[in-house]
């Protein structure tokens, strides 16, 4: 059996809840985030941004800005080496426009000056001559054949006729005979749903500090979900060797997918190169909203057929996403995950992506899945209501399980959806009484989870403690999880392991902290690195004892003779092996490098109660329960935190959050006052139920847990809303004016 395959075992440390190693720093203000780094001689960088949704830049005159005392560098998109290609060129042009401003807030120039005031004055001295072009900011208009074209030459090769050249992507998934399926249905419902673009809403604005020397070598400190990715993108854009740029990830103040790419980092490098001094560049909140990626907005048609006893006979969806002014691939997971919770004989999900004059979308927690799932789960719920069926019974009747051919192709291995639905049905929340103007909604959710390139090094120090070096920024306690897995495997105390997130010069490549991959993939590599160190420690003990290495086993932090034939030797503690290591062959380090596969998909089921004020349309979330399969919860408190945080982001998406663009193509609510994320007084307790259906592809059974929690809330709340006000609303957010309108129109 391969080591990465799941083996049932009793754990000593896994499943406990020790304090995270970065905890004290984070409650005392000592932790250093992206904007908390300072260097001698450091300059302040600022960006000039387009006020227009779409405009040709006829000329930029930076001479007056350059002449201002205290200004050390002024750059435009033309100053980047013209070497980036393909997707990287898109990223570069999103950072700094080249010839055309493609959205309100698109950066067109940047300055570095001795202080913020001088930098701001310099921005005012830059003269940009714009030729305003027609713009389009919403899906319905962007896909029409006569729409203003955001970028020519981007039409996707599979896009059907009848759509504009803004349409960059088309995909289709599914199997079976749809029309035969619909013919078997007793009831078919077809509806169109819309969701607004929402922002990840991390509290820490993007920030970086770049320091490039005249020799072309550079260091950078930044808040990111993946500093190796930052290094590789910046190196390509700046035409540097990857080895010439060392990137250190700061503590990160939230990412949720939004910090998986670069927005300012190449610009800071370019400014530092021109000025010959370190440059700190920090986005304002206005810039974060306008120019870092929100998630896609959507418009989805769903058609589902059901028999009178609740069997789904066919499901069909056309999912349209807009993701800003450059192509993106979020439509793929959107279409793949739409029906992934169901065992269907006939299913089809088609996806269409269109360009708009908005910032390029960035990943947001299970990117693409919440929008399409919302539409499907809302129609399933309506069918349940119309046919008088219990919504959990119907989901159980149609639930995907081991052996189901998924709607996106492969056959499922062990998955936990049925157990989750059964737990939801048995949960006291599901049978609790409801009062007037109150309603209950439920929804399934699915997400893939990823693995990816991973490199980990585990050093045995001479005192027997462990330094674990990994390369993925810690967003929600992953250093604790890694320390726990290393300690479990080595049989030593959690406190004996210190886990460090190393810079890009210290390890092989590590894929971005995304796709709920870290506890799975870095955990896998940590366990294997620990096993490598254990094997070496056994070899050292064997040498000391003068016996064969395979006659030594590792148990609870000790090397021990494997059996009576190995001879009489007192168990040798890790501390002694460590202390002797200089004389038994040298330092002991276990390491592991892998492209991890076998992440194991994850499901969640949410139950939600709301109360709607019929006078104002205001919705109060009364009670919320999240049930999710974690495979194996390494640190249950931090798993719960992921489930709660994801649910609350989904609640915000369902009820309040939206990008609002005016007729002029400008973003009207680029601030936390007008883009309202949930606050403490909006919310009830978020109850959690962790189920553990082990992932066969991880030695401890771990599945990713970070993303799935944001998938069900959109439909759970929408379904609760429908059952409360008696109207099927089909657009998010269900803000008070929209709810009031729906109530009034119903009469």
């Amino acid at each position: 059996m391969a080591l990465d395959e799941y083996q049932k075992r009793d754990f000593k440390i896994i499943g406990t809840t020790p304090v995270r190693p970065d905890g004290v720093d984070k409650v005392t203000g000592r932790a250093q985030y992206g904007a908390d780094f300072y260097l001698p001689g450091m300059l302040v960088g600022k960006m000039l941004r387009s006020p227009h949704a779409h405009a040709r830049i006829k000329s930029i005159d930076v001479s007056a800005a350059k002449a201002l005392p205290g200004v050390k560098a002024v750059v435009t998109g033309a100053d980047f080496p013209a070497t980036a290609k393909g997707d990287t060129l898109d990223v570069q042009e999103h950072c700094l426009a080249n010839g055309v401003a493609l959205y309100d807030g698109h950066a067109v120039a940047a300055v570095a000056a001795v202080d913020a005031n001088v930098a701001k004055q310099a921005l005012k001295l830059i003269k940009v001559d714009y030729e305003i072009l027609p713009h389009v900011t919403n899906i319905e208009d962007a896909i029409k054949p006569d729409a203003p074209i955001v970028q020519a030459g981007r039409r996707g090769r599979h896009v059907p006729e009848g759509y504009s050249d803004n349409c960059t992507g088309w995909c289709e998934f599914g199997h079976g005979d749809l029309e035969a399926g619909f013919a078997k249905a007793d009831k078919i419902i077809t509806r169109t749903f819309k969701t607004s673009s929402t922002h990840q809403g991390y509290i820490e604005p993007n920030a970086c500090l770049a320091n490039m020397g005249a020799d072309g070598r550079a260091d950078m400190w930044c808040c990111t979900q993946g500093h190796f990715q930052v290094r590789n993108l910046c190196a390509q854009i700046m035409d540097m060797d990857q080895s010439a740029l060392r990137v250190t990830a700061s503590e990160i103040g939230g990412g949720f997918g939004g910090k998986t790419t670069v927005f300012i980092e190449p610009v800071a490098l370019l400014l530092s190169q021109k000025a010959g001094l370190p440059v700190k560049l920090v986005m304002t909140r206005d810039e974060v909203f306008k120019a870092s990626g929100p998630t896609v907005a959507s418009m989805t048609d769903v058609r589902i057929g059901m028999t009178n006893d609740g069997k789904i006979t066919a499901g069909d969806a056309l999912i349209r996403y807009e993701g800003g002014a450059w192509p993106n691939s979020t439509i793929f997971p959107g279409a793949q995950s739409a029906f992934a919770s169901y065992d269907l004989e006939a299913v089809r999900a088609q996806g269409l992506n269109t360009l708009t004059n908005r910032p390029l979308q960035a990943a947001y927690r299970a990117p693409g899945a919440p929008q399409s799932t919302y539409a499907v789960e809302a129609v399933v719920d309506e069918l349940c209501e119309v046919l008088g069926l219990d919504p959990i019974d119907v989901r159980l009747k149609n639930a995907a399980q081991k052996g189901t051919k998924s709607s996106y192709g492969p056959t499922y291995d062990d998955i936990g959806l049925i157990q989750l639905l059964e737990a939801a049905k048995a949960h006291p929340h599901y049978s609790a009484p409801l009062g007037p103007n109150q309603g209950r909604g439920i929804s399934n959710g699915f997400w893939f989870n990823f693995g990816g390139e991973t490199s980990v090094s585990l050093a045995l120090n001479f005192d027997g403690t462990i330094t674990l070096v990994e390369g993925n920024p810690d967003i929600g306690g992953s250093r604790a999880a890694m320390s726990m897995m290393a300690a479990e495997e080595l049989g030593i105390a959690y406190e004996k392991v210190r886990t460090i997130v190393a810079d890009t010069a210290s390890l092989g490549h590590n894929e971005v902290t995304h796709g709920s991959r870290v506890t799975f993939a870095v955990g896998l590599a940590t366990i294997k690195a620990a096993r490598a160190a254990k094997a070496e420690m056994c070899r050292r003990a064997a040498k000391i004892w003068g016996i064969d290495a395979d006659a030594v086993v590792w148990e609870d932090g000790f090397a021990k003779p494997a059996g009576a034939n190995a001879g009489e030797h007192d168990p040798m503690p890790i501390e002694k092996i460590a202390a002797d290591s200089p004389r038994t062959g040298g330092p002991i380090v276990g390491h592991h490098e892998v492209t991890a596969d076998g992440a194991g998909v994850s499901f969640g089921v949410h139950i939600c109660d709301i109360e709607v004020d019929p006078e104002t349309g205001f919705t109060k979330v009364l009670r919320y329960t999240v049930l999710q399969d974690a495979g194996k919860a390494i640190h249950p408190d931090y798993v719960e935190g992921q489930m709660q945080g994801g649910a609350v982001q989904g609640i915000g998406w369902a009820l309040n959050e939206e990008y609002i663009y005016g007729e002029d193509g400008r973003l009207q609510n680029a601030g936390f006052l007008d883009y309202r994320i949930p606050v403490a007084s909006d919310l009830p307790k978020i109850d959690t139920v962790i189920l553990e259906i082990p992932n066969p592809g991880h030695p401890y059974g771990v599945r990713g847990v970070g993303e799935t929690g944001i998938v069900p809330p959109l439909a759970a709340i929408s379904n609760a809303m429908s059952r409360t006000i008696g109207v099927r609303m089909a657009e998010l957010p269900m803000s008070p004016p929209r709810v009031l309108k729906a109530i009034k129109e119903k009469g």
Partner: protein
Amino acid sequence: MSKLHITTSINGDQTEFLCNSDESLLDVLRDRLHLTGAKEGCGSGDCGACSVTLNGRLVCSCLVLAAETEGAEIATIEGMADGEKLHPLQRKFLEHAALQCGVCTPGILVAAKALLEKNPDPTETELRYWLAGNLCRCTGYDKIINAVMDAAAEMRGA
């Protein structure tokens, strides 16, 4: 433009600094004094990540002009622990896993401490409304509320 000379007390230490007339207290704390525990999440008083107390009153330091703090007493997250001994709120935040990314944590701790000084026995609803000016995007607030309620109980000797 000549700079203003300000004398103030920060976490009990007399502190002098020079600032421009339009500089915020947050800018001075971070960029001049390198007390970076207070964070800038918005710069407009909407997120609470820069919370400090000014003469005992909870404020967003991004909305206070540094020049206004002449003679004032300022308390920041850096002054919350007593040397190596954490404040009960800090300890309970760790025990209850009340932080994920941690960037809002300093502001929330400062705000919670200010509440408990005024009201040592808040209801959960009072606490949720008091903290409504401190945005957290990671946790859904659940564990933050648990941590503060537990710290309040401990501080009351309950």
